[in-house]
């Protein structure tokens, strides 16, 4: 594989406006219920006890997620038809001619990247806006972010520039699928494995 592509997310800049989610939905004309990019509102808190006084000590941050075009793409491994496959550039995509719409990839992916499109009877997912990139444009989500919290590119370059953190709650442990994702964590971000918070908008993600 020549160059592996991935996303970068600066969690410290995200305001949770969901422009990335809407830009993606609009660009790909996704039906109701299918959202290739979603923004989770992650939060939690404890009580800070000072003498007899209990004060709430709370936190909140956002996590935007589409597909990480994982090195260990479990969706492609489990796909019975080989419709889900990893292209030369590392982008994980669905071949509509092969897909049977069994939704097994949906069960396997801990990032909810493959999503069933009832209109086509097939799975669908983020292809990192292959057509836009072909025209020299950024993917719709990256271009839409008003805080410039999203970036994309060859994962090696992203890691050189931004580091290699990806183990941030509510994401799963990166060892599960080896995602091509780099995050600059928010100051209240919780590492995977020490998570105390919860996704507060579960029906949206």
């Amino acid at each position, binding site marked *: 594989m020549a160059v592996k592509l991935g996303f970068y997310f600066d969690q410290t800049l995200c305001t949770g406006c969901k422009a990335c989610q809407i830009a993606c939905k609009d660009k790909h004309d996704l039906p109701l219920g299918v959202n290739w990019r979603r923004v989770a509102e992650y939060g939690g808190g404890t009580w800070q006890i000072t003498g007899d006084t209990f004060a709430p000590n709370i936190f909140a941050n956002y996590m935007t997620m589409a597909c990480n075009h994982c090195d260990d793409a479990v969706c492609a491994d489990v796909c019975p038809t080989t419709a889900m496959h990893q292209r030369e550039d590392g982008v994980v995509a669905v071949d509509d001619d092969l897909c049977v719409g069994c939704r097994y990839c949906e069960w396997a992916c801990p*990032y909810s990247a493959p999503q069933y499109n009832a209109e086509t009877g097939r799975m669908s997912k983020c292809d990192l806006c292959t057509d836009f990139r072909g025209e020299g444009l950024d993917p719709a989500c990256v271009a839409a972010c008003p805080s410039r919290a999203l970036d994309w590119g060859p994962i090696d370059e992203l890691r050189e520039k931004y580091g290699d953190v990806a183990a941030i709650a509510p994401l799963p442990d990166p060892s599960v699928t080896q995602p091509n994702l780099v995050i600059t964590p928010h100051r209240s971000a919780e590492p995977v494995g020490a998570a105390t918070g919860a996704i507060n908008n579960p029906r949206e993600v």
Partner: protein
Amino acid sequence: MFTDLSMTIFSIFAQMSVGAFIVLGVVQVLARTRGGRSAEEIDRLTDPATYAVGVTLVLGLAASIFHLGTPMNAINVLRHVDSSWLSREIAFGLGFAGLGFAFAAMQYFKWGSAQLRQVLAGLTALVGVGLVASMAMIYASLDAVPAWNTWVTPVQFAVTTLLLGSLAVGAAFMGTVMWRRRQMEQAGEEPATDERDLATITASLKGIALASIVLLGAAFVIIPLHLNELSQGGAAAVASAEVFSGAMFALRLALVFLGAGLLGFFVYRFASRTEVNPQPLAVVATVAFGLVFVGEFIGRSMFYESMTRIGM
């Protein structure tokens, strides 16, 4: 409830088919070695049940088609056998169906020697075991789903396979007996069942009753262990355990307990008596099967409902 109806029907029917086929094989072997019956005598008893296995398997496979968004592409599911447990499941499923039908046809037309047919039946049973194993691995291999990603999945599938298989064979045997008696009655004859046949059936039913009580015990050990495991896992594991509670869960446990436990006990009692009228035994065997079937069906439906993934 019943979110994944087609998968529930497919997995329950396919597992029951494999279980029944294996149990019929065990009956064949034991009736010949310990009961001293000839192959032809046992075939007369087991053949109708064997054909019934074919019907349940076809029903299951047909239901699985409804799970697909694009059934026209169904043939593609065999393309990834080297990596996907789902491909392997379908390969084993088609293998089990193909070999099973070949065996049933050879039994029906008495093609080939009895020995050849036995070898084929053994091979079919092995492929059936492969089917249940690959079915379990579909779920057990998913790191993203803590409720499935455990040793519990293959063990529970094995218990369901043998429990439903045993009780289905028991009900099918009694159904065959009652149906033949009715045929005699309609022909104006005194309904009768060959004494040696009845002996074989009651011996089989005693074995089936014992097996179901043992399997019931296993099931009732696995469930709390599973819940305990989930309670100690992460947020997704804890959330998925919530499915296994409430009235439907209690009903599922009660049905399996009544069917396999209580009725297993009655089957054993009735089968131990040497009565001429097999009707009470037929009723008990059928009700036991029906209760366990419904209980397992609800259980499998909950299994699919417990699909809560880690991550987001």
